[in-house]
């Protein structure tokens, strides 16, 4: 049995260590053997015969909301109206039923499986038939309300994408961007490959050599300019320049790197999980401990004036598109699925890109695996990547271009089923190495998702025309103009802002009739809000362990509390517990006459339990406060 270790993508931003420690095939096989059989998938992944996937009037297009809050659904629909109207005009051109809005009773029901959802709409397994269900389906909602599993499974046969933003303005901005891109953008055929290879890091060395290099060569096309950066060029500053500098921004971006991971509840988790760790990281031997933001590219590094209109991106990175709440890998081994996040969420970087003009981002939910592109002794296997990119470069919509990953998922799924059955029936025939590789590949291929409308595609320049990337029209929420029975947030389109223009200074020359004294108050309070936000962030960043100490004294009046050292001077320290973020626990137990002082220990334990509960509550509130302050 091979002792060779399998290395997994993903770096823990708090510790600087690998998210998933390397393990042998045997160890991974033990995990897989406890797994459930995956059901066999269908062989064919496209709409029914004769449908042109580029023509929405043949494929159909639908949007799926979640049941629950009708007012919110109406608000989301209103925000997305430009996109919905645009898609309706395309999909319902010859048949009205080819455009569907799944709202109200038709919407996704909480906890519903893909099978139950489709059955409810009179659809069974098989190729997508637009007469029954549109092929392109946009899910609107967060992954707690509409789970990732629903998206994965629906995506097997349909072309599925998802949108979830924090504000209606962002939805409206994206909707506007898509329509603008499809009506007015004409981009140069330019693709950039960004492949990191961090020193002493096998995962990125593998992706640089076996994915980026051969893939960029395989999609070479006389009509396209392909720019493949060397690993040394793949630093954060370069990526920032590619995205924030319109002259450099490609129409198609493909990256391969580690994605940042953080401990459950870490203050940076929602903000930075999935951020792309660039060449700036000197590798596991060159840097220990917390990974600084200087090493990775996150949503924070995209300027508010950036214009990515029309771009499509593909991130090969752990958490690059999202994170589930529960660990996908522990169930079989431990019988439990520990939480890896307070709740499932989409990564911030692709969402930010979408509000700045990108049409869609393909990437991974949960951890990404090298088995995506290297298959055991068979070596690099890039067919799914190559075919997807080529279809994008041919102008196919992103939801259909990624079908190659869906079919790969289904194929691997059947192979895993077979191996598990073999392992359970004839244990001596089980090839653990094969099972381990197959299991990780199955998990990996299932978890590629599209963030954005699955029907978007690259808007190319045609003929000899000059490329055009129109300026984004910023969205500002305004008070409603007319009474309406529906939640009446209306959106005012601000005048176009050229990419180089600085954001408007609200305390500067813009005259909205505010008095000087009010402006001064505004500035003062803004300063305080900023200070409080920074204080909260600093405090939460410093929360790395929980420590509880118990002291005893015969005379409390003689005891002084030292705030700096956090100890009582003049009292006897009798018990201590320190619990680190990674769960490591240190206990110092009180003794009396050579035996454990159980009475005092029980008292101490009750204090530890109280502290744990309190911390959880305080952190939750603090995170909510931080979020609220940021919304100001």
């Amino acid at each position, binding site marked *: 049995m091979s002792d060779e270790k399998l290395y997994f993508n993903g770096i823990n931003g708090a510790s600087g260590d690998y998210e998933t420690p390397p393990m042998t095939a045997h160890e991974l096989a033990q995990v897989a053997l406890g797994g459930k059989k995956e059901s066999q998938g269908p062989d064919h992944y496209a709409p029914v015969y004769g449908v042109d996937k580029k023509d929405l009037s043949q494929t159909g297009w639908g949007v799926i909301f979640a049941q629950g809050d009708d007012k919110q659904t109406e608000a989301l629909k209103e925000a997305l109206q430009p996109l919905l109207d645009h898609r309706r005009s395309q999909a319902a051109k010859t048949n009205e039923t080819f455009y569907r809005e799944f709202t109200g009773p038709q919407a996704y029901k909480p906890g519903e499986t893909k099978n139950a959802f489709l059955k409810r709409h009179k659809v069974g397994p098989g190729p997508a038939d637009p007469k029954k269900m549109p092929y392109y389906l946009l899910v609107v909602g967060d992954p707690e309300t509409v789970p990732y599993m629903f998206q994965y499974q629906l995506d097997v046969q349909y072309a599925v994408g998802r949108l979830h933003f924090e504000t209606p303005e962002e939805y409206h901005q994206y909707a506007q961007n898509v329509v603008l891109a499809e009506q007015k953008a004409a981009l140069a055929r330019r693709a950039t490959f960004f492949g990191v290879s961090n020193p002493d890091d096998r995962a990125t060395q593998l992706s640089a050599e076996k994915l980026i290099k051969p893939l960029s060569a395989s999609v070479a096309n006389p009509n396209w300019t392909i720019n493949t950066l060397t690993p040394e060029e793949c630093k954060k500053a370069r990526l920032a320049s590619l995205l924030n500098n319109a002259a450099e921004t490609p129409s198609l971006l493909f990256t391969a790197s580690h994605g940042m991971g953080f401990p459950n509840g870490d203050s940076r988790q929602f903000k930075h999980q999935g951020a792309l760790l660039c060449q700036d990281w000197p590798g596991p031997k060159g840097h220990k401990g917390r990974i600084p933001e200087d090493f990775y590219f996150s949503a924070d590094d995209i300027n508010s004036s950036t214009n990515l209109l029309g771009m499509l991106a593909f991130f090969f990175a752990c958490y690059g598109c999202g994170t589930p709440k529960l660990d996908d890998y522990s169930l079989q081994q431990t019988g439990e699925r520990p939480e890896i996040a307070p709740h499932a969420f989409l990564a911030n970087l692709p969402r930010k890109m979408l509000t700045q003009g990108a049409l869609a981002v393909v990437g991974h939910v949960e951890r990404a695996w090298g088995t995506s592109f290297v298959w055991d002794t068979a070596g690099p296997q890039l067919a799914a990547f190559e075919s997807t990119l080529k279809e994008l470069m041919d102008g196919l919509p992103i939801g259909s271009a990624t079908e190659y990953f869906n079919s790969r998922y289904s194929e691997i799924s059947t192979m895993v089923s077979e191996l598990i059955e073999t392992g359970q029936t004839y244990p001596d025939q089980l090839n653990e190495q094969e099972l381990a590789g197959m299991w990780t590949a199955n998990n990996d291929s299932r978890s590629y998702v599209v963030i954005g409308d699955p029907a978007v595609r690259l808007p190319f320049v045609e003929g000899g025309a000059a490329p055009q990337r129109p300026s984004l029209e910023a969205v500002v*929420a305004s*008070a*409603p*103009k*007319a*009474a309406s029975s529906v939640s009446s947030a209306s959106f005012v389109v601000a005048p176009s802002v050229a990419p180089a223009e600085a954001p*408007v200074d*609200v*305390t500067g020359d813009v005259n*909205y*009739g*505010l008095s000087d*004294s*009010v402006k001064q*108050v505004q500035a003062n*309070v*803004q300063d*305080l*809000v900023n*200070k*409080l936000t920074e*204080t909260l962030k*600093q*405090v939460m960043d410093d*929360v790395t362990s*929980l*420590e*509880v*100490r*118990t*002291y*005893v*004294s015969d005379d*409390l*009046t003689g005891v002084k*509390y030292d*705030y*700096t050292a*956090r*100890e*009582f001077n003049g009292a006897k320290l009798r018990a201590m517990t320190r619990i680190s973020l990674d769960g490591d626990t240190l206990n110092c137990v009180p003794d009396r006459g050579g035996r454990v002082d159980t009475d005092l220990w029980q*008292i101490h334990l*009750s*204090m530890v339990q*109280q*502290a*744990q509960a*309190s*911390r959880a*509550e*305080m*952190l939750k*509130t*603090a995170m*909510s*406060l931080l979020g*609220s*302050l940021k*919304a*100001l």
Partner: protein
Amino acid sequence: MSPTFQLFDSDMAQLTPDVFGVWETAPSEGAISFAALEEAEEVPVWSVNLSSDAFLAAHELDACLAQVATSRKALTIAESRIDKLVAQTRSQGEVSFSVSAMDLPPAESDLLAALDQIKGGDTVSFGLLDEGQAALGEAQEKFQRVMERVAQALIYYALVETRLESRLVGKTGLTWAADAQTLWASDAPPEYLALHRRTLALTIASRNALMRTFMLTAQGAVKLSALLATPGGAILALPVAWKFINQVMAEVGHYLELRQTQPQGV
């Protein structure tokens, strides 16, 4: 003896007579310097003095815990009242702070008047223009000072003391993130130690509620900013939202007090 619940903090003592109707604020007994800091700063001391009858003392603490819980519920009520007011105002057809068009409770009327002042609009809801601006200025200044204090309190420790008829039985140094160093009297019976744990629970609940008040203030300000339609309106609405929330909490507290003093039954 009557129990006392005191928060020794000089800044808070100037800003408010009590916290959630439970903790009476009082000036600190002396500045304490931190070696790690550039300036001497106060550490809040949350101190309770209870009856030596453990059962009675527990009852006193439970009553205060219930009161803090009520404050949390009051926060929820304040939030929903903001939502209702925003919806009601917008459904008028255009953003208007004309109070005469709506029948509103005093807290809502004051809030709209304050927003009107900020907007600098023609419609003045109550009283003279000068009075309205002065009230707004006072709310803004108070909010700034409270916010400064909370920002400082977050990174500092708190000290929590439990006394039974002035005899100290337990003391805990508490960080914001709940790290705790606790000192017990070696001869204290278990029920006394249980009382101190309750005191800790009350302190933590109070600090948490304070943080939630800020959170809802920020959220409320974002919602109210839709009525202002002014860049940076959410920032301007912060003190207004803060005042409104405190008014609602006082209303809820007064209502519960009345309920408790009403004769029960026939």
